[in-house]
C-alpha cells in the first residue's frame, strides 16, 4: 500500500467526515438547545438534495441550486418547527421520536408524490469537475476538495456564530437554562425557530453537496441520519466541537477501515475470503468505535456529565 493511496484515503475520510459534520451539527444543536430528538433531520437532507436537483434542472446553475437547497431546507425546517415540533419540546422523548418519525413518512411520501420514485439527475458543475494534482503527486477530485473546504468553512462559521455573536450567546444560554433566558426577556420561541431552521439549512446544504456525487432519491436521508446519530453520540450530545471531532473520526475510521482491513486480512487469508471478511468487519467498525468511546467517556468526547 503506497503512501499516496493512504493520503488519498485520508482525504476521502476527511471529506466524508465534514459531510457528516454538516448533518450532525444541526442535529446536535437542536438537541442541545431544545432537548429535541429530531428523526426528521434526514428528510431535510433529502429536501435539500431534491430542491438542488430541481433548480439545477430548471436553471442549469449549481450556485443557484445550492442556494435553493439552503432556502428550501430552512423553509421546511421553520415550517415543521412552527406547526409540529413546537408542540413537542415539553413532551417525553418517546413522543418526539414518534412525531418526527411520522414526519419522515410525510416527507418521503410527499417527495415521491412530487418527484416520482426514480432517482433524479444532479451533476457536478463543470467548473468543479475533474481532478487536481496535489503536492506529492496525489490526483484528487476537485469537487471533493471543495466539499472539504465548504465543510471546514461552515465549521469555522458556526464556531464564530456560537462563541462571538449575540445570537450565539443566546443559544448557549438556552442550552444552559431555558427558563432563565426567557425570564430575561429573550423571545425563546423565535430563537428556537431560528436554531431549527439553521440546523435544517445545514442538512439541506449537505444533501445538495452530496447529491451531486450520489443518487438523489427518496429515502436517501435515513442511512446518513443513523451515521449522524453515531457522530453526535461519539462527540457528546449538544457539543458542536464534539460533532466536528466525532464526524471526522467516524469518516476517517470508516474509510480507512474499508481500505486497510481487507489488506490486513489478506496477509494471512485467501484473497477472496479476506475481502469478504474484511469488508464485513469494516462496516461494523464505526459502531465498535462508538462502543469503545462510550466505555471510556460515557457522555462522549466533548459531552458534559
Amino acid at each position, binding site marked *: 500500500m503506497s503512501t499516496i493511496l493512504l493520503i488519498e484515503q485520508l482525504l476521502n475520510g476527511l471529506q466524508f467526515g465534514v459531510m457528516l459534520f454538516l448533518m450532525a451539527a444541526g442535529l446536535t444543536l437542536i438537541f442541545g438547545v431544545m432537548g429535541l430528538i429530531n428523526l426528521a433531520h434526514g428528510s431535510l437532507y433529502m429536501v435539500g438534495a431534491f430542491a438542488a436537483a430541481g433548480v439545477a434542472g430548471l436553471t442549469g446553475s449549481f450556485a443557484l441550486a445550492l442556494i435553493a437547497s439552503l432556502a428550501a431546507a430552512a423553509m421546511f425546517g421553520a415550517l415543521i418547527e412552527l406547526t409540529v415540533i413546537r408542540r413537542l419540546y415539553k413532551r417525553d422523548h418517546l413522543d418526539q421520536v414518534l412525531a418526527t418519525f411520522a414526519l419522515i413518512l410525510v416527507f418521503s411520501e410527499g417527495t415521491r408524490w412530487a418527484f416520482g420514485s426514480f432517482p433524479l439527475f444532479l451533476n*457536478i458543475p463543470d467548473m468543479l469537475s475533474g481532478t487536481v494534482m496535489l503536492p506529492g503527486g496525489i490526483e484528487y477530485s476537485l469537487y471533493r476538495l471543495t466539499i472539504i473546504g465548504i465543510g471546514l468553512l461552515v465549521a469555522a462559521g458556526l464556531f464564530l456564530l456560537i462563541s462571538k455573536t449575540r445570537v450565539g450567546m443566546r443559544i448557549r444560554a438556552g442550552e444552559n437554562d431555558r427558563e432563565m433566558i426567557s425570564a430575561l426577556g429573550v423571545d425563546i420561541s423565535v430563537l428556537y425557530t431560528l436554531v431549527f431552521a439553521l440546523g435544517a439549512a445545514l442538512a439541506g446544504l449537505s444533501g445538495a453537496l452530496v447529491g451531486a456525487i450520489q443518487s438523489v432519491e427518496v429515502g*436517501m436521508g435515513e442511512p446518513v441520519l443513523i451515521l449522524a446519530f453515531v457522530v453526535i453520540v461519539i462527540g457528546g450530545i449538544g457539543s458542536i466541537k464534539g460533532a466536528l471531532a466525532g464526524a471526522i473520526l467516524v469518516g476517517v475510521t470508516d474509510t480507512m477501515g*474499508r481500505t486497510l482491513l*481487507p489488506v490486513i486480512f489478506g496477509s494471512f487469508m485467501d484473497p477472496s475470503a479476506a475481502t469478504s471478511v474484511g469488508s464485513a468487519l469494516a*462496516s461494523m467498525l464505526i459502531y465498535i468505535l462508538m462502543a469503545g468511546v462510550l466505555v471510556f467517556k460515557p*457522555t462522549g468526547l466533548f459531552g458534559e456529565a
Partner: protein
Amino acid sequence: MNFKRIVKLGCGALGAAAAVMALSTAAISEGHGGDVKIGMITTLTGGGAGLGIDIRDGFMLAVEQSGKDNIEVFVEDDQRKPEIAVQLADKLIQSEQVDIMTGIVWSNLALAVIPSATAQGKFYISPNAGPTQLAGRGCHENYFNVAWQNDNLHEAAGAYTNSAGLSNTFILAPNYPAGQDALTGFKRMYEGELAGEVYTRLGQTDYAAEIAQIRASGADSVFFFLPGGMGISFLKQYADSGIDLPVVGPAFSFDQGILQAVGAAALGVKNTSQWSKDIDNAANAAFVETFEAKYGRLPSLYASQGFDAANLIISAMGKADITDQDAFRAALLEADFDSVRGDFEFGNNQHPIQDIYVREVIQEGDVFTNKIVSTGLTDHQDIYAAECAL
C-alpha cells in the same frame, strides 16, 4: 443526565421505526373475488425502490392485459430489509392465504423468505433474485426463477471482458449473496488477471475509497455490479475521478433507472443482459410500447422480468387449476408463454436457459438507453443445475 435514556430511546426508535413501517404498508389489490391469490413482496421505498417499482409495474401490466378478473395481487413493501420481508411473508401466507408468492428483488431477502414459503406448500416465482443457494442442492419443486440464476449475467460479462482484450481487471460488488454470486460468476468466465477484488456495503453511497484503490491498482478495466442507487453513485463518482479505464458490468449497473440519473457519464459502456428493449419479437415490441404508454417511462430489465413472471403464472392458469398443485407445477414448467426476451425454457432446476446479450449505452434524443451489439452467451444454463435433484 438523561443520556443513557436517550441512547436507549434512539436504539428503540430505530427498531420501532422498522416495525411501524412494516405495519403501515398497505395491500393494493387488483381484481375481485380471485381464484388465484398472489402475494408480491418487493422493494418500493429506499435506495432500491426503482427496481421493485419496475417489477410491480411490469407484473401489473401483464395482469391487466390478460383481462383475467380471477387474479388478486397483494403488493407489500419490504424496504430492502430481510426481517420485514419475513414478517410480510408470514402475513401473506397466514392471513391472506396466497397461493403464489413473487416480487423479491434482493437475494438476501429471497434467502430469508423463499425456503420457508416453498416448505409451506406455496409456489414462489422469482422475478429477480436467483441466489446460488436455491439453484443447486437447495432447489425446490415449487420454486421457479423466471429471470436468471445470479451468476449468469456476470458470466457473460466475464466472457465479454476476454473478447474485448482486457486482461487485468478490478472487480467490485456489494457484500451480500448476489454480490458474491456476481464476482464468482465473473471469475468463472474471465481468463485474465485480477488487479483487485473488493466487496462494498449493500446500500453504500460513497465509493471514494474504492475508486482510490482502483486508481492505485494498475488495472486496465473495471467490472462492477452495483444495482439501483449504488450504481448511480458509483458511476457519477467514477466519472469525476479522472480515471478513464473502460468499465464493464451486468445490466443491473446500467438499467433504465440508473442511466437517466447518471446522464452522459455511462455513454458507450458495454453491459450484459438477457433482455433489451430492442430485442426483435412481437411480444417485446408490444410490451415496450404499452409499458411506455401506461407509465410514461421506458421499461427496465426488471420491468421485463415482472412482466414475464406474471405471464408465466397466467399461462399456467390457462392449463391447470391452482388447487391441483402437481398439474399447476407441470404447467409452470412448460413455460408456455411469449417471453419478451424471445426463446425461453426452464432447466431441470427451474431456472431459465436463455441467450444473454451484450448491450451498449446509447443516447436517443435526450433519453439514455441500451442497444444490443452482440450475443454474449447462447442458450446459457447455470452451472448449479447439475447439483439439483429435480
